[in-house]
């Protein structure tokens, strides 16, 4: 008997989280790399604190986008072909697998955002007006990036030039999220409403989730 959709998704997420706990790629490699990127920027643009305070939020989101998507793509492609075949033969629903992988990536990305965000606040002396809203902004951006990365990972899996192709596919498509995230932080700084930007993020998440679930099976057939 095959388990239900959410049980399958939960099992995939548990497996991927266990794998991440053992390997520690995000915690010990990607997050330190993101913090290093934050340190490199002032060396290139100057160490003027008012300038860094002004461009810091944007830089933070650019780093989250570029590094975060790679986290999600990596998570989506950790299974070997034999593991994928075994999962398919056991009746694992591709859509449940997609949802499980996405949830894992989203969870890891929230951790990435929080830790790199703390570093950004410390390095660039960023203002923290309206910070409780970040409890909504961070998960939404993480979910959007996780969906995008998992989709891109599924599209390019088994493609020879996959590694080279992923940034070209993903970077332009993450623009709505980048815009909404940066404008939301700018809105918080200026004390404006950010609901329209949250709505844009939620719409992107919804569209990507629907496309991801509906196309999971066709994409599984291409692997």
């Amino acid at each position: 008997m095959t388990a239900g959709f959410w049980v399958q998704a939960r099992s995939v997420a548990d497996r991927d989280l266990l794998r991440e706990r053992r390997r520690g790629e995000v915690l010990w490699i990607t997050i330190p790399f993101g913090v290093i990127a934050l340190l490199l920027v002032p060396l290139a643009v100057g160490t003027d604190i008012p300038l860094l305070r002004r461009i810091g939020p944007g830089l933070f989101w650019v780093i989250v986008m570029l590094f975060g998507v790679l986290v999600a793509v990596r998570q989506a492609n950790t299974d070997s072909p034999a593991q994928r075949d075994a999962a398919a033969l056991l009746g694992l629903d591709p859509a449940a697998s997609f949802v499980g992988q996405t949830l894992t990536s989203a969870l890891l990305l929230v951790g990435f955002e929080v830790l790199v965000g703390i570093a950004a606040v410390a390095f660039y002396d960023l203002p923290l007006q309206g910070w409780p809203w970040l409890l909504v902004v961070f998960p939404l951006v993480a979910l959007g990036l996780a969906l995008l990365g998992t989709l891109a990972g599924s599209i390019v899996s088994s493609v020879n030039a996959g590694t080279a192709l992923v940034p070209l596919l993903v970077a332009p498509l993450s623009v709505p999220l980048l815009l909404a995230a940066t404008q939301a932080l700018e809105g918080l700084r200026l004390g404006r409403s950010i609901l329209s930007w949250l709505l844009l993020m939620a719409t992107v998440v919804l569209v990507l989730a629907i496309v991801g679930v509906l196309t999971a099976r066709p994409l599984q057939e291409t692997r």
Partner: protein
Amino acid sequence: MTDRTSTWPWVVIAGAAALSFTLAMVSPADAVQGNLVRIMYVHVPAAWLAYFAFFVTLVGSVGYLATRSLRWDRVAASSAEIGVFFTGLAIVLGMIWGKPTWGVWWTWDARLTLTAIMFFVYLGYLALRRTTTDPHIRAKRAAVLGIIGVVQIPLVHFSVTWWRTLHQPPSLIRPDGPQIQDSLMLLALVVGVIAFTAIYAALMVKRVELQAVEEQLTAAELSVDRPVAGEAVTAPDLALGGEA
């Protein structure tokens, strides 16, 4: 029948281009921009075709996933190619117009930037299609990207409304009607849009035909047995104990 099919698209392209060019030349110069305004008669239709072509790519992508018929995939791919061309044309013409008007070839205007990003989204779509020769695997992967990519279209179109930018608001598609007052200028623009759409349709017919021929050619090439390492290596004759 075959001859007619292969000839009429060229007639449409030539006729539409001539009509559009004539109207663009006889329409009056703008009071502020002078003759520079004539770029608009190509720039606006090219930008419209970029949206339209990528929307057709979405339709073709959904059509393929629903029916698994390669005809839909050919429509999606052909439209994306044409869309990339017209997006590039719109960007280049915008830059040519921008230099004398704004004083720079490129400015960080929301619409310019988002249009360039849309261009790269579909360049990625075309790059993805080149990664495999199996038509169905290629079609499935490309279809997913063709569906996601379309979110760029409303972003690009409404960017001038959502953000304060240098680029002027939409000229034709506006809630309060077209912004252009001069009737000949408006006619030249509307005819330009229709003519370019006819050119798009004609190019689509030719490109879809070509796509089918390309698939047949690839299939024929892949079905031919070839020596594994070319002529340089001769397989040992096992019947003679490998001494040949």
